[in-house]
């Protein structure tokens, strides 16, 4: 069986006044039907731009400069806007980070939901409304009729994100790209939304790309992880294997900076240094300046190489299997 989504050498560049920022630099990954991929990395590593590139939503000065996005056998990049638009919201839906900003403040919820239904299916308004009500109930919103007649500002952040999720679910898509959908919410609401999305995706067999800077959030959710740094994937593989045994020093740094039950009392460590500017990247390994293991070999950019069953890592000096955390 071929993959649902196959991203291959995707490149998205921003042509700014100060130079070209390679926000996504030859990123490849694939996703089976119903699978959940966690796309992890510090902010500015290119996660959102990867998501937008898949849907063709990169705004100037950005542009997809190369690669393929093959969705269910069709190359979306080659197909261009008409192909993308027929899939957006229909077979691939997206949920954004800030629920306060994703709903149009001057349009009622029913307008914003019904238009989504009718953008892809020629149904009556009544039928569209019925589907909207159903979707709202699905995401745990009670009295949907009343809610439909409200404006976004009458809702809390968590409620708005539920509405956004309901909109994403309207067409029962094959893939949902969720760009840090819980980051802006309270911790308790985060957990609720996380488990609900997981449940809904499992029920309908929807594949999910969950973008986050917080490893703790995806570790219990995703089947696979892809870790991004400065526009590149530096490690990917099954979630359990990576969490138990991170190979890349950066991944290890991310894991060590997450509070965990089993290492209770241990010091939380932080990755030293800051995310580099994409306009001013080091010659070789992009992580080398911040890496405790860097040496002369790291002046040359490492390639993504196999590292165990179904795993890859981009590092000259990866941690060995079952090497203890220092």
């Amino acid at each position: 069986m071929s993959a649902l989504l196959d991203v291959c050498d995707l490149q998205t560049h921003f042509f700014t006044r100060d130079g070209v920022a390679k926000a996504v630099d030859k990123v490849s990954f694939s996703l089976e039907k119903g699978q959940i991929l966690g796309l992890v990395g510090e902010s500015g590593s290119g996660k959102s731009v990867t998501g937008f590139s898949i849907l063709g939503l990169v705004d100037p000065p950005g542009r997809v400069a190369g690669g393929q996005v093959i969705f269910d056998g069709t190359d979306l990049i080659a197909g261009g806007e008409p192909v993308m638009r027929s899939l957006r919201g229909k077979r691939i839906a997206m949920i954004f980070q800030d629920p306060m900003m994703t709903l149009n403040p001057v349009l009622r919820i029913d307008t914003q939901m019904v238009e989504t239904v009718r953008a892809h299916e020629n149904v009556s308004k009544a039928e569209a409304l019925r589907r909207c009500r159903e979707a709202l109930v699905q995401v745990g919103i009670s009295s949907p009729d009343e809610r439909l007649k409200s404006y976004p500002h009458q809702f809390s952040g968590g409620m708005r994100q539920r509405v956004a999720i309901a909109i994403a679910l309207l067409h029962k898509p094959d893939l949902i790209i969720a760009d840090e959908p819980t980051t802006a919410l309270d911790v308790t609401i985060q957990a609720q939304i996380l488990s609900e999305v997981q449940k809904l995706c499992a029920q309908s067999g929807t594949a999910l790309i969950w973008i986050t800077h917080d490893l703790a959030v995806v570790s219990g959710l995703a089947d696979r992880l892809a870790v991004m740094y400065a526009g590149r994937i530096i490690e990917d593989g099954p979630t359990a294997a990576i969490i138990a045994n991170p190979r890349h020093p950066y991944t290890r740094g991310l894991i060590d900076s997450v509070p965990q039950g089993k290492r209770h009392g241990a010091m939380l460590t932080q990755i030293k240094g800051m995310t580099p500017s994409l306009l001013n990247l080091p010659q070789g390994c992009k992580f080398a300046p911040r890496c405790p293991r860097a040496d002369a070999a790291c002046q040359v950019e490492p390639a993504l190489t196999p590292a165990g069953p179904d795993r890859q890592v981009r590092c000259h000096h990866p941690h060995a299997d079952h090497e203890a955390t220092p």
Partner: protein
Amino acid sequence: MIVYLVRRVGQSLLAVMAMAVLVFLGVFFIGNPVDVLVSPEASQAQIAATVERLGLDRPLYEQFGIFVWNALQGDLGTSFVYGRPALEIILDRLPATMELALVALALSVGIGIPLGVWAGLRPDSIAGRTIMGGSILGFSLPNFWQGMLLILVFAVLLGWLPAGGRGETTEFLGMQVSFLTWDGLSHLILPAINLALFKMSLIIRLARANTREVCMQDYVKFARAKGLSPRRVVLVHVLKNIMIPVVTIIGLELGSMVAFAIVTETVFAWPGMGKLLIDSINLLDRPVIVAYLMLTVLIIVGINLLVDVIYSLLDPRIRLSEMKG
């Protein structure tokens, strides 16, 4: 909503009252109309009689009191020159000015918003840059000069359109209007364009700036991510958001259009209130000047009130907070 309305009406009344004082004082100090009204050979007694007939011998506060009392009854004085009620003279001219202002407004909105949105969607395209360049011209060239240029090109050089006057008028809703006959319309086009150019430039710039800002918002990207057509994204999601500031400006500008019409009416000999005002100032016809200013204030304040109501209908967030407040 009701509380909000009552408060806004109260504010408007205060503004009108303050203007009444200013107008009255201002006009009081611009000169003695008697010097112009009576012939140079008039005797001292004739002058005194005129002064008394016009009530100019009373103290300032008394004249003001009489003015307010009469104004409340719709009497803004009798023209020194025409011997008819000043308000009546102005109201005769009002339809011509309102027609000119409304047509100019329709032009500036109907052309300004599409051009501004277009330029905002494609700020770096040749069309976008051209539109912006043009709006800078419309913005910075003096109004009267633009008017004379229009006359020079379309009336004198090309001879397509008449240079001045109002042309044939017909009755429409009890008012004389020009736009229903071809002759009237041909007289209306140039002054309306002249009056519209400045506002059009303003609306273009405003619409462009707001379109650019709204387009960067997440909700526009989300709308696209839902698979909506670009048409719907622009016409519903973007336009509805930029209409809020644009409607405000349109309202404020309709008032100032009535005021700006003075220049246009003078250049194009358009028989409206503005031209009447200039004539009356030359003749020091105080009641007409006062009546013009008071009527203009009423129009502007009334329009502002209307805009606030429309504004609150457009923006649900204001509706809610004002209803609570």
